[in-house]
């Protein structure tokens, strides 16, 4: 699983990062963000690309598990 740390970044950087990462068409990604907008935006992008997203929240951070 490819891990991406997008903490400290705001819109649209995390989406740009997941978009670039998805060019390699891996089966699963794990992305960490630290704000609601990034959590929501990355979820939208992954779902738009046909992936499923699971979110775990902990201490103001969100870990998104993105799988086909």
């Amino acid at each position, binding site marked *: 699983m490819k891990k991406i740390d997008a903490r400290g970044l*705001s819109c649209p950087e995390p989406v740009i990062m997941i978009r670039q990462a998805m060019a390699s068409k891996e089966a699963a990604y794990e992305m960490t963000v630290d704000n609601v907008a990034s959590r929501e935006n990355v979820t939208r992008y992954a779902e738009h690309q046909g992936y499923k997203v699971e979110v775990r929240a902990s201490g103001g951070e969100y870990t998104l598990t993105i799988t086909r």
Partner: protein
Amino acid sequence: METEVKLTKLASCAGCGAKVGAGTLAQLLDGFKTHKDPRLIVGFDKSDDASVYVIDENTAIVQTTDFFPPIVDDPYLFGQIAAANALSDIYAMGGEPKLALNIMCVQDSMDSGTVREILRGGYEKAYEAGAIISGGHTIHGAEPIYGLAVTGFVHPDKVLTNSGAKPGDMLILTKPLGVGVITTAAKAGLVDDELMSRLHLQMSTLNKAARDIMVRYKVNSCTDVTGFALLGHSFEMAQGSGCTLHLTVDRIPYHQEAFEFADMGFIPAGAYRNREYAEHGVSAPGVSRPMLDIMYDPQTSGGLLISAPEEEAERMLGEFYAAGVFAAAVGYVTDRSENDPYVVAE
């Protein structure tokens, strides 16, 4: 090779997306002690677009200020858009802008040519609105900022607040939505030049033509759709008026490309702040996620949201079309009972 510093790269949030959320603002102002003056007919407590102070039976002063970090890289265009956005609050009160002052923050890497172009854009846009910029104040800071403090006039009996909507009114919106979403997608390089120029033209277009037609009709309420988005501003109008605003989703105008960009997650953080602020008052059960995102999307220099009796609104729409002013009927107003939502998107 590009050597010029890109203005938008110096800003952490773009345009009206930088606005502090309505919920946060309300918290900051909670319990703030204010003083009353009978001549101040629209003030601090009203969450309106501008303040209104009555001079005599024929004249009231309308005052407002608005400023934000660069939303475009072209400094002249940034000046024009920031000025059009600031002047809009005067139009939203039914007034005419007459004088304005620059508010500017210069970041160290900006050269004098860039600063001059921003100021020229603002000056020319203000002049187009019939206002003269007579001075201002400039400071150094971490991010560029530009905007205006504007003074206008209105007849005291013709003030249009955002709290006068009445059951039976029709709602008209005078610019299409999608500005925040598209400018966010533009940061990822996904927006073509044609769409970008369309957006630039829209953001730098004054709400003057729409206002000049609007004031010839009986209008109950008006606001401009900017940082708090269509749903945030509709929520404020509904709360202020004690009514329910019904938005007909199929008739809400937006730039088509914004739908796909929203579905891809190119949504400014301000849209989520707007949703947090307004969603408890909004009912939108059948609305798709991207469309709802567009309705929460902060608009830089957005259009007027006009609430007028149906017959007046129909005639006004006809005049907007004839004059080539963009306008769409987007909904209607009904009575609100205690447990009804303030805004229904259907």
